[in-house]
């Protein structure tokens, strides 16, 4: 992988382009005029503190929240995104709360991940499931267990695996490392890197800025509802303002864990 190719945001075909996206809760603007771009095969991360509007942004792009602005996904502009339509067009969100089907088995959760694909006539979920199991061997062991009985890390794996069942063009991950033990976080980020190798474009929202900047090609910093900074991830990781606000001083073991 050549860092230059992924670092530049210009040469690639754009999968997602969000223009002037604004979300208001009543009179409060939670997100104002956000502009972001995700190129094909890229990992783009949005980092920022709690309450900056990261989850709001993903929910609005997906159509879970009402918004103003334009979402150009895969060459078609959506004025008002509708969740089911976005899923049908190849966008998938792994939400912060995972939103698993707790009283159903791991395997049923995965099968439902391919619901929209199945409806549009692609009956290949058995094969996709095999790929997901190869990526997450742990899920295969737990296939007949109820999703509600899984550990935190397994739940996250299941949430990602379920989203992958739809064979998305763009995978949006909301805080995939939230509440997980460091070793599991490392595993999750390893898999995010692996997914890019398989050609999935990823929009990653993270509080764990260090790990996110390490895996991503391009990054945005979101602060109080506005994009404060953007640039190639490596560049941002060296930016003194980012270091001061999000990375802090050197925690060596953190760095090890996130590679």
């Amino acid at each position, binding site marked *: 992988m050549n860092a230059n190719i992924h670092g530049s945001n210009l040469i690639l075909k754009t999968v997602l382009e969000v223009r002037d996206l604004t979300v208001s809760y009543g009179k409060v603007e939670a997100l104002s005029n956000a502009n972001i771009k995700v190129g094909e095969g890229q990992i783009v991360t949005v980092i920022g503190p709690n309450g900056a509007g990261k989850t709001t942004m993903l929910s609005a792009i997906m159509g*879970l929240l009402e918004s103003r602005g334009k979402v150009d996904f895969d060459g078609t502009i959506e004025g008002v995104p509708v*969740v*089911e339509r976005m899923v049908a067009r190849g966008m998938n969100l792994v939400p912060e709360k995972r*939103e698993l*089907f707790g009283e159903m088995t791991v395997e049923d959760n995965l099968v*439902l991940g391919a*619901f929209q694909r199945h409806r549009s006539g692609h009956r290949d979920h058995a094969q996709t499931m095999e790929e997901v199991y190869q990526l997450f061997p742990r899920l295969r062991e737990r296939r007949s267990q109820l999703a509600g009985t899984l550990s935190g890390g397994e739940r996250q794996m299941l949430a990602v695996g379920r989203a992958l069942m739809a064979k998305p063009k763009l995978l949006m991950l909301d805080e995939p490392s939230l509440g997980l033990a460091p070793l599991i976080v490392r595993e999750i980020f390893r898999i995010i890197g692996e997914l890019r190798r398989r050609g999935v474009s990823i929009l990653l929202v993270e509080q764990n800025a260090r790990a996110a900047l390490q895996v991503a090609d391009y990054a945005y910093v979101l602060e109080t509802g506005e994009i404060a900074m953007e640039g190639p991830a490596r560049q941002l990781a060296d930016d003194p303002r980012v270091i001061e606000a999000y990375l802090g001083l050197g925690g060596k073991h953190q760095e090890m864990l996130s590679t």
Partner: protein
Amino acid sequence: MDFQIALLLGQDGITNGAIYALLALALVLVFAVTRVIFIPQGEFVSYGALTLVMIQAGAIPATVWLLLGAGLLAAALDVRLALRAGQPGRLVRLVGWYVAYPLVLVALLYTLPVKDFPMIAQILFALAVVVPMGPLMYRLIYQPIAAAPVLVLLIVSVAVHVAMVGLGLLFFGAEGSRTPPFSDARFEMGPVMVSGQTIWVVVSSLVLIVALYQFFERTLYGKALRATAINRVGARLMGISPALAGRLTFFLAALIGALSGVLIAPITTIYYDTGFLIGLKGFVAAIVGGLGSYPLAAAGALLVGLLEAFSSFWASAHKEVIVFTLIIPVLLWRSLRGRHVEEEE
């Protein structure tokens, strides 16, 4: 009371209980998926039974006009939406289902000598008229207010129920009717005679329950409905739209209702408003299961059926009172034992 009477009453109780079980399952299903407390469930029982009566009398069932009217309305709404969303491809399919389907039914009912058809064909015609009203009802009434609080949905359900009873009076008149039994066979079981229709009711209910179970456990659409009931947001993220889940649920509820009506029409006289009381007893059974558990709801239905049968022997004037009073200890027990759960959303 001697043993033979007890057996007879027990047989009655089980027969009615089987029907209440079906209705209770439908109520639990509708509530779990859409949060609607489906008061009009019983109306589908009357509509199903009386539509069959009209077909057997050689008349064009008035319900088919309701279906056509609702279809036209839904088509108007959806065609506008499809045009605005720029998906003209969907138009053909929409118009086909909403308008052409009822028209074809009308044409068939006018031209074919349905009156002289075997009973099974007449039943299929009755179901073909009544069952599509379920998804249409969801589309026209509940889908626009799908995000409303449970209480609003309940109030709307009461309104729909009243409207349907009124329309029922208009369609079928105030006279009660019965249909001939599916079979005239009688079986001797020890000291009691069991009628063929009783067996039909119990066996059909069991078959339907097993079929529903298989549907929810084995098929993708069944799993999608369960997923919607468990986690609505999660289901939407998989592309399972609440509208699709709602229509499918209401289809099942209408099917269960209409089929129950067809099953009991040979046993009891059905009036335009009979369904309400039957539906309410299904509701009592569903409450026993906390509107959440299918097996408990089915057990509750059996309990309601037996209680009704035996109280009709001892205190026949008060049998309804006794059955509906059952709800008070159940609610007390549930609210004292269960922990209070905040309403979601």
